């Protein structure tokens, strides 16, 4: 398996654990700051990543969502499913970058 495919597998496996409970959202600074749109919170980011891999999603909106994340790890602590949200987002940036280091 190539590095990029391995990275994809790692990220996807983790984000698919999301059950949409929303317990991550109340601590997210970026969700709160402007529109309150789920797009700019951890639950939205995690599920957009899953959508990107599984059925496709508008890349512009996806990037807006992913690159506004502070990677401050507040959400990671809240997730009852133990999803490493901040790390998945960081890894996904790596993926979007064409897998600098894993290609």
């Amino acid at each position, binding site marked *: 398996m190539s590095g990029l495919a391995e990275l994809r597998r790692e990220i996807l496996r983790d984000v698919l654990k999301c059950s949409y409970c929303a317990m991550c959202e109340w*601590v997210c600074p970026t969700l709160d700051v402007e529109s309150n749109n789920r797009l700019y919170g951890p639950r939205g980011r995690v599920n957009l990543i899953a959508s990107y891999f599984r059925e496709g999603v508008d890349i512009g909106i996806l990037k807006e969502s992913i690159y506004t994340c502070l990677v401050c790890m507040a959400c990671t*602590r809240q997730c009852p499913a133990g999803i490493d949200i901040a790390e998945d987002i960081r890894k996904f940036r*790596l993926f979007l970058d064409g897998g*600098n*280091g894993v290609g």
Partner: protein
Amino acid sequence: MEVMELVNRYINNSNLIIEIIRRNIMKRGYPIYIPNKALYGWIDEDFPRDGEYFFYTGLMYQMAPYIERIVNMLQKLRSGVLFKVINILNRVVDVSRFSSKPSHEEVMKMHKIIRNIYSLVYRSGLSVWYDPSIDKYAGVLLYEFGLMDDLKIYAERISDALSSMGVNKIVTIDPHTTYMFKKVFPSLLENYSIEAYSYLELIDEDIFVGSSAEQNKFVIHDPCYYARGVGVFSEPRKLLDRIGVEYIEPKFNRVDTYCCGGPVESLSPLFSAKIGVKRLGMLVDTGADEVITMCPICMANFRRVSKEVNIIDLSELISKYIK
């Protein structure tokens, strides 16, 4: 909505910003241009050239005043074409040189913070030494942008340089550098054996006189990468308690701290500022007169959004009480 549109424009330019920063770090050893005097000008005495703990500044405090300037410059580059020109230009010259310079006072303030921290560890009885040639930026932005290939090469360079000078223990002074050495490098590099400690973990409480003379009310803001990253949050409180400084806990504290907004500054400055305003609001709402930070990024972001509130570094406060 206006902010999101700006964010959008920035995201579209983000690859270029990332490329400029990447190239700078890999070629020049820092993400943005900073004159040598600003990086190492804080050294004003003869530091020991050998010892047990290497004093590793990671250059974050030195860079903080410059970040705002470069961000402002990038913000003005609205046209994508101009951006591309800049990017090509950057391959030959470091374009971040062309941004305006921070004031002398700002640079000096940061230098004083570093010297204070050095005094704190030195007075705590640690055998600490310094050599500017191996005190490098730790690659924080490469990590945050997910540029792992570059980071690995870069981290190997840092680690090899340290090893070649016989360094196996370091004292770090900001949360981001601390996180790189404690969490990122060990999982990235084979044969990595450097033990890293935040200075907050190493200070001996007995070096302080235990009678605070502070009139102002303080509120404490934990940086994400100390509190959640490496679990450092009780240490600063113990020191303040020991000195007798009264401080207020804000909404969202310790491991549950709330980000200052700093990390997205280079990609979307306006978005970052909005978060800074929100967090600073929570801190000021406690009724405090001054905000205690422990991270140059937090400090810079709060200062950027408010000139009225007094933002200080923990080391400035506690070093006043060294016996």
